[in-house]
């Protein structure tokens, strides 16, 4: 549920807007000129807003597709991201979106056709080489599917483009729409997990680990490629045992050789995002941990981070073949 819906006047009559408004039919609607009027003002408190965010329906006029940061990817050479949504219905305390935007309102861009045209254009630029498009950079790709119908529109777009791959990154169990569609080998649904202790403390509103594993298995059984993202690894007194337990829980259900890809990375936030988030959540233990600045990124002190990553890698590689493992090398 959202507290209110802000709609850009220009797209008030757009069929996708109308359908969303119909779904939220008792929610107050406020017309705005441009989403920036609501999303960008300085005097906003992300933490307070997150307790009852609004929905903003807008049009993204340009820069629909952007290059990913250097370390972002799973083995591909040409990596892009596109965001039909900014912000998320979940509330993970380590999420970089908290320090990225001033507003916690969920912003949906409904001009999917413009995104699709840009994706086709970028794909064509690469002369048949594989191109990766990541859709869960600024949001959870699937969590809002009943409202956005993102998958319903974009999976067929990628099914038509021979050399394009899309990663759907999610912590949700919203797979119903995917199950209705013909599996596309170039659309990877990547599920993120942290261990049970970190999940309970830090991932507010996120479905249980078991439910997410079940959703993953349902996709595997239907022929969809799935990925596993063990990111972020969070330090706590018992992280090693908790990580082993998480792997056992996942691989008791999921056949490791059927995974498309697996990635792993320690908790990290860009320095400026960290500053913002820490200011908002001074009471959060995660941010009062022993952390260090390295290459403009705040993460664990190097020796601790290396110890954590090498322990987790060692455990992980007992389950999966090395060819599908892609560490998050943010130090490079």
């Amino acid at each position: 549920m959202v507290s209110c819906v802000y709609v850009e006047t220009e797209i008030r009559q757009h069929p996708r807007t109308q359908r969303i408004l119909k779904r939220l039919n008792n929610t107050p609607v406020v017309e705005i000129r441009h989403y920036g009027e609501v999303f960008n003002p300085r005097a906003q408190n992300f933490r307070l807003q997150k307790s009852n965010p609004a929905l903003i329906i807008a049009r993204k006029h340009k820069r629909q597709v952007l290059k990913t940061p250097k370390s972002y990817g799973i083995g591909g050479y040409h990596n892009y991201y596109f965001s039909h949504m900014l912000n998320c219905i979940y509330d993970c305390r380590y999420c970089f979106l908290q320090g990225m935007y001033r507003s916690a309102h969920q912003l949906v861009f409904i001009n999917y056709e413009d995104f699709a045209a840009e994706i086709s254009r970028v794909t064509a630029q690469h002369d048949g080489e594989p191109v990766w498009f990541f859709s869960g950079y600024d949001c959870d790709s699937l969590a809002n599917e009943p409202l956005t119908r993102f998958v319903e529109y974009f999976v067929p777009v990628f099914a038509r483009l021979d050399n394009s791959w899309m990663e759907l990154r999610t912590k949700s169990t919203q797979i119903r729409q995917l199950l209705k569609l013909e599996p596309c080998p170039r659309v990877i649904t990547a599920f993120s997990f942290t261990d049970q202790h970190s999940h309970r403390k830090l991932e507010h509103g996120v479905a249980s680990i078991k439910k997410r594993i079940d959703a993953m298995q349902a996709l595997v059984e239907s022929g969809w490629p799935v990925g596993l993202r063990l990111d972020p690894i969070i330090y706590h007194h018992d992280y090693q045992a908790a990580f082993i337990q998480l792997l056992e829980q996942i691989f008791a259900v999921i056949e490791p050789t059927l995974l498309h890809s697996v990635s792993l990375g320690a908790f990290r936030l860009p320095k400026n995002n960290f500053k913002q988030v820490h200011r908002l959540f001074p009471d959060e233990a995660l941010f009062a941990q022993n952390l260090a600045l390295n290459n403009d990124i705040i993460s664990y002190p190097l020796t601790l981070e290396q110890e954590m990553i090498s322990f987790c890698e060692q455990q992980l590689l007992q389950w999966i073949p090395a060819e599908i493992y892609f560490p998050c090398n943010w130090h490079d």
Partner: protein
Amino acid sequence: MLVWVVALHCEAKPVIDHYGLKKSASHHAFDVYQKDNMHCIISGIGKTAVAAATAWIAGLNRHQGSIAWINLGTAGSSAHTLGTILSIFKISDSESDRNFYPVPIFDSALEPAHCLTLSQPSTDYQLDQIYDMEASAFFDAATRFSSAELVHCLKIISDTPAQKIGHDKARISELIGQHIVELASFAQSLEELNDQVARLEINQSDWEKILGCAHFTRTQQSRVSKSLRFLFSQQRQTRALIAEVTKLQSAELVIAHLENLCHQQTQTL
């Protein structure tokens, strides 16, 4: 703390009576009524007056951890009946053409409305807007001191094409007074929200005690503040912690001690 900003005394009277606010003898620029953590300031009519009053009282309370604001007043409308109470979701300023959006953060039963703030009185009402003379300037001024979630405007319809209350003070008080339960409930939710923010701040006198025990650079102050804000939030005995820290004789020792306590405390997340 919560501040009511109201143009006229007759509009403020129901709030003053309900909370038993007392007129402050020490303030002369504006009439201020107060009790405990609540203030009500009478700004006068119009944008300049309300902006001045808002900035003035914010300055007076600059040591408060966080301030929540309600602009209470009357408005004109051609779509609502006399006495309707409305919560403003959008404010437009007729002069500057700027829009402002108070954030509807907690569930309130009050009907939402779009308010157009005019510089001159007018009765040329559009159906989808209500009309006042302060909201835009109030919101613009208050959001310089508090985040938008803590700044709200509540308006009661006093003028419609069919009925005009005009300057009938008693009738204005009556129209507003009939909504005192809703107003008080809204104010309570807002105060609770504000407490969430204020709780995270370090009390000024505690902060001064800590800073008094050694010389801290700006960066060191920021590290101390982060550690303290975390430790205070973990139900640590504030007094005992301050006593521990003020025994230490250098900024480095204070920081090391506090950060060590934080690291110990965060082993289990």
